């Protein structure tokens, strides 16, 4: 039970810190911000990979593999597209110097 309380505390603290940090992001960075946080939600790939450390039956292996693929797609694609977008902002700043 104590474990569950700690886990909920992690949720509350992370949510609060997230709010404090993200309200300070300017509107011009809202698209990269959403793209980056979208990539972060691909962290579920960790949960999917952890399924493979337990003994699971064949159906579960198929579902877990699908989850791994979807999560990895989300994670890698999200960070890659964010990096490309921010590169566009960066390119302009470099040229001005």
């Amino acid at each position, binding site marked *: 039970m104590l474990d569950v309380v700690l886990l909920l505390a992690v949720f509350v603290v992370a949510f609060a810190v997230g709010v404090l940090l993200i309200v300070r992001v300017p509107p011009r960075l809202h698209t990269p*911000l959403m793209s980056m946080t979208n990539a972060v939600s691909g*962290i579920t790939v960790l949960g999917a990979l952890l399924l493979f450390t337990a003994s699971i039956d064949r159906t579960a292996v198929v*579902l877990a593999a699908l989850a791994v693929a979807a999560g990895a797609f989300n994670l890698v694609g999200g960070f890659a*597209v964010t990096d490309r977008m921010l590169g566009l902002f960066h390119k302009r700043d470099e040229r001005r110097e």
Partner: protein
Amino acid sequence: MNAVNDVSPWLIDLAVLTIFLIGIARFRRPESACGGNSLVGAAILGGLAMTLGWSVWHHASVALAAAAVGATLGWFTARRVAMTGVPAMIGFQNGAGGLAAALVAFVELTRRPAADSAIVVLAGTLSLSIGAVTFAGSMIAAGKLANLLAQRPSELRGHGWILRASFGAVAILILWAAIHRSGQTLPAIVGMSALALCAGVVLTIRVGGADMPVLISFLNALSGLAAAFCGVAIANRLLIACGATVAASGFILTHAMCRAMNRRWQSILLDGGATRTDDAPVERTAPVSSGRPPGPAIAAAKQTLLDQTPLDEAPLDEAPLNQARLGQSPLDHALAALRAAMRILFVPGYGMALAGGQQACVQLANRLLQMGKIVKFAIHPIAGRMPGHMHVLLAEADVDSDLLVDLDDINPEFAQADLAVIVGACDVVNPAAIHVPGTPISGMPILNAHLAARVLVCNLDLRPGYSGVDNPLYADPKTILLLGDARDSLQSLLDRLADPPP
């Protein structure tokens, strides 16, 4: 996993999360955001390695193959997508994240022994259903954003009732599973998944057009919540903390988008598009693509187009409308106005991106800057298809980001502007939002382009924007209508500006 007795996993997670949060903090400024993104990515990868490194694996090859396929697909689609396609891409990725959370919860719920605590079952079923809603909703949203599905919101008979009933049924199933610890019974879980998928579809098919930025922000928040609940179900702190941060970000953006439109999220998501924050009578308006007969404002604008008294020289030909659209006269008008103006404010909208006119628009602005004029871009928060989209679109066209000014800062400048150049925007400059009560955009903060001395409209046609509300600005005598493809219009202005003035 015994979280309390073993301290070192806590320390590792704390280190990973600290790097993660430092990365997010770097999104405060454009210069540091790129490094911030890499830092967040490194934190996530580090967290994956630290958690998985010393585990015993079964079917490791299957897992690695799946990860490789997903990662490769993700990488290549991200490298190839155009900046106009970014909202659809993000919607699609978001759906993949929701699917992953739902599948993990599904497997966890079906393989766990019945002795799980109620909170674990509750978290698992919440992750499953929120993940399923996110998946179904994001796929519909991505389809709309990619123009694979109709932009027009489709409304079922008794839509609000169906929506509430399906969410209510999911909630009852979740509570039932948690109380009876029967998350393990397969029919209950399958039923819950199916209902949640339906709820996601019903939620999103009715939202469209100008409300897409709200929808995609909300789905972003949901995918974070699904990941966080998934983390509670499998007792993984990284999942919980990352998911919670994503949820926080998604809800903040949802709130920011709603504020930019003076709407409440409940009215957009639960009650359909047209309900207003105030209780003014609601006028159901026709969607953009309905091809309805032109309203009075458009008729007046067409008259203006024919009658338009010239700025300084020869009178406009009494040409038929279709000739006036493509003919020289509006272009000459526009050129004269551009040359005469000293302070020029550009108002870009998503129509500019649809016409591929970003490059021409930025080049025209740069040309005017070279001519010694003061040029700025007025950016409405909902310009584009997702929060902040217009900044990215113009950044791709290599605009000087100092020229981009947000709504609150630029609005006082319109009254001093000699010319407002509207490129593919309609609702965000529609004065009806201020003057006419009871329309879907009444009360929405707009860019005050109507306060500029003259207005140049480079839109495709005179049809209203996503809201369906006619724009009285088109009929204003000070407005020059340069209708047609925005890229062509801007390019011809750019070409003609190079000529010496007559």
